[in-house]
């Protein structure tokens, strides 16, 4: 099974620039106002609605056409707000991340072997590494995937600063793997996304998500098994305008020596999928995988 996704935005570079200018001169209020119009326009386009149809159809199986139109609008609206908040965080600052996750991650410093944070594309996930770097009391590394032609800019790119965390790119293969292990050995927090498979070459396992099979990546579990680092399921939540928090769903200890076979990691990936599904039950409009995971 190989579902295709892209990190590229639906909006053009010009459209993004208009929003960034609006944030700069009219604040998030002005940007949200334009966003409402843009989201309404995009919701009317079947090509955009189709991108969330597979998820919303399973999350709201009884919804008719008009109800589904509203669900699509709400999903796009929430996503758009997260993007506005991210840009505003870099342009004018002021994004507030509740620090209630600090205590639940304090064991990382005590054990001294680093922690792998496995996240979903939820809420204000793009701002969570900054929050971790500023509040968790240890260095943070993000394992990222980018595509040519990405126009979305991160908060620090707007601010013209370096991010308060390190980024490693999955495409760099062996070097990235060694660097990840070294970061864990130094007691760092390592942020990896757990709900999207990057291409056909990435090791993945089949899990049940909303009652149907999907592929989810298993590299993070293998890294946890090899390194001995605990693995923590985390989901970012947008709690309001320019506000967010990080939910710590579960802390896992993957046994050492599970080796190369992806199927050995299936039970752990299934637990992640189950937690992610539970998250979407509570926050249905904060799950941002705009492609058919089941395709």
């Amino acid at each position, binding site marked *: 099974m190989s579902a295709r996704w892209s990190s590229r935005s639906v909006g053009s570079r010009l459209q993004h620039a208009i929003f960034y200018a609006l944030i700069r001169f009219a604040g998030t209020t002005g940007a949200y106002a334009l966003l409402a119009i843009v989201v309404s326009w995009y919701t009317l386009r079947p090509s955009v609605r189709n991108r969330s149809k597979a998820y919303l159809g399973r999350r709201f199986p009884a919804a008719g056409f008009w109800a589904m139109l509203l669900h699509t609008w709400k999903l796009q609206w929430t996503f758009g707000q997260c993007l506005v908040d991210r840009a505003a965080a870099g342009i004018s600052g002021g994004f507030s991340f509740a620090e209630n996750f600090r205590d639940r991650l304090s064991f990382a410093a005590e054990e001294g072997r680093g922690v792998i944070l496995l996240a979903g594309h939820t809420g204000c996930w793009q701002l969570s590494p900054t929050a971790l770097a500023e509040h968790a009391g240890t260095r943070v590394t993000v394992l990222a995937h980018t595509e040519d032609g990405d126009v979305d800019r991160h908060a620090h790119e707007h601010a013209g600063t370096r991010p308060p965390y390190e980024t490693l790119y999955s495409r760099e*293969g*062996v*070097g*990235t*793997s*060694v*660097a*990840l*292990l*070294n970061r864990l*050995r130094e007691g760092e927090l390592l942020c990896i996304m757990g709900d999207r498979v990057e291409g056909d070459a990435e*090791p993945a396992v089949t899990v049940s998500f909303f009652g149907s099979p999907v592929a989810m990546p298993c*590299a993070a579990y*293998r*890294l946890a098994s*090899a*390194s001995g680092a605990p693995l923590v399921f985390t989901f970012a939540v947008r709690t309001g305008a320019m506000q967010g928090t990080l939910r710590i769903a579960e802390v896992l200890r993957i046994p050492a*020596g599970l*080796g*190369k*076979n992806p199927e050995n990691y299936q039970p752990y990936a299934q637990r992640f999928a189950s937690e992610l599904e539970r998250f979407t039950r509570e926050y249905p409009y904060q799950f941002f995988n705009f492609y058919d995971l089941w395709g």
Partner: protein
Amino acid sequence: MDIRTVLKKAIVEELNLEDVLPEDIKDDAPLFGEGLGLDSLDAVELTVLVQRLFGVVMDDVEAAKEAFASINALASYIETRKS
């Protein structure tokens, strides 16, 4: 047992390489991609294995990438750092 023999035996056993015997691994064949066909995640396990078996920490990413070119390169890396 010399370093190359220990490495080959450990790679086959700990990376669960089915249908591969230690003696099948050539000293100068690529370990990743072609040759033995290890992937980037195998690099993590290989790094842990080298530390456990030989007490050598592979903390220099560029040096580690060169060391992972072949059994010969890895053995040479280990010999240099053990002494």
